[in-house]
């Protein structure tokens, strides 16, 4: 299971840079990220090469941090490739709370991070449907 770092950020100048700088100083590499925001605040989600260290370092700097289990999948990098994978989850009544993509690609595959309401069930569904699941190591250090 891929461990994702989530942290609370106010929508204020310089906050995002502060987090990224902290990661840089600790030698932590950011692999993928997404931000969900409202007018006042946002939640920054990160896949990094060392989640435990990132969590500890961010907490030490006073951030609200949690680690969440997410699923990484590899889908065919062509129109409709992602839709097929999501259909399997839909059919099994597993819902996607949020998702975002890895930058770059791997051969003819695109990599997507999914947060599911039922991670275990989702994993089974996806595996049985022939969707390729990313290994943890692959996500952290692609």
């Amino acid at each position, binding site marked *: 299971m891929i461990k*994702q770092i*989530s942290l*609370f*950020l*106010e929508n204020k100048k310089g*906050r995002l840079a502060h987090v990224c700088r902290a990661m840089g100083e600790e030698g932590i590499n950011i692999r993928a990220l997404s931000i*969900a*925001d*409202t007018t*006042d*605040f*946002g*939640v920054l*989600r990160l896949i990094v090469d060392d989640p435990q260290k990132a969590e500890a370092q961010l907490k030490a700097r*006073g*951030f*609200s941090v*949690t680690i*969440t289990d997410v699923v990484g999948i590899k889908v065919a990098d062509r129109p409709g490739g992602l839709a097929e994978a999501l259909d399997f989850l839909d059919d099994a009544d597993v819902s996607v*709370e*949020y998702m975002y993509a890895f930058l770059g690609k791997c051969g003819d595959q695109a990599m997507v991070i999914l*947060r599911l309401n039922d991670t275990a069930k989702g994993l089974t569904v996806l595996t049985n449907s022939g969707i390729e699941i990313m290994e943890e190591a692959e996500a952290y250090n692609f």
Partner: protein
Amino acid sequence: MIWNEHAECMPKEDLEALQLRRLQELVIRVYHNVPFYRNKLQAIGYEPGDITSLKDIEKLPFTTKQDLRDNYPFDMFAVPMSEVVRVHASSGTTGKPTVVGYSRRDLDIWAEVTARCLYMANTDRKAMIQIAYGYGLFTGGLGLHYGAEKVGASVIPMSGGNTEKQLMLMEDFGTTTLACTPSYALHLIESLEKSGRDRSNFKLKYGIFGAEPWSERMRKQIEDRWGIKAYDIYGLSEIMGPGVACDCDVRNGLHINEDHFYAETINPDTGASLPIGEKGELVFTTLTKEAFPLIRYRTRDITTLHDEPCACGRTTVRMEKITGRSDDMIIVRGVNVFPTQVESVLLEFGETAPHYQLIVEREGTMDKLTIEVEMSPALFSDTVTELSHLERRIYHRIDSVLGISADIRLVEPFSIPRSEGKSKRVIDKRSL
């Protein structure tokens, strides 16, 4: 205009003799009828009859808001419930209100002291007074109401809110005196200007404003924009409600109706009595109240008392406009807000209360309360939907417990400044 020349212009010696007699009677009454006071008086070895001069009041124990909370709802009452003809309540710090009671005679005296205030504000039988204080548990509406009826004014019991209708009635009925909070008075004139109504169709001449702190600057603003004279009326429900004091045309402080409410100032830290003219916490003793008498009640309001004669002819002691509080309470849109109330609401959302801060601003003419809540592990969720939902839940709990709508803002941990480990709970940015 003076409503009760006998009481308001009494020579100082006569007034003091009257106060002493009433104080002696009061102490005997509470000693016999209120277990709380009997215990307190016995604890200091005091017995009724020991009071031989007004100065002796300084030996009596204080009563605090906490005492009222501890005796919720009726244990401080000094008469049987059959003698109580009305109760009012104000918001308290724990979600439980502070309850006050009135006998029939208390209500008569309340109308009497409010009538005196209305006369100070040039409001008599010829006046058409629109009362835009809330009617209900809050003392503002009904308090002014009976005073206004007593002076024989025509009363429009409009209550608070509904700005459009307030303006319509003011214009159509020819309201001459407006009674409301000063911020609402400003809100009304702003709305009037926006609505395209013509001010010259309004007959408003006087305003009697209170229930929240306001400055001379704000008074000038109200007077200039409305083109009226504005008077400051002071009161608190624990003591009576509006009518405890009001300023006259001389504007040299608010005349305290001290034949009913004995005023002192004390050092808020040591409790030591201060001589007249020295700034301190205002303390009241209700000399004549039957149902809910209080001895040396600490108002937490900071002011200075003056007793030189006033050019208006009244001899009663005057208090300066309230300049601050000796605790963290703030008054927002007429509602008492204690930081501890906010804390107890936030406790419902986790095992420990997060750091928080109350920020009061004046937006246009209305007070705006923002509560900043620091994100904590107990509150954090990694979806914004959950966090927005959390904001809404806090908003609704604050609204139902404190009776006030506040903007809730989630902020990053450690973003609220801390001093000596304790964060400053209230930032009041209103330039009063």
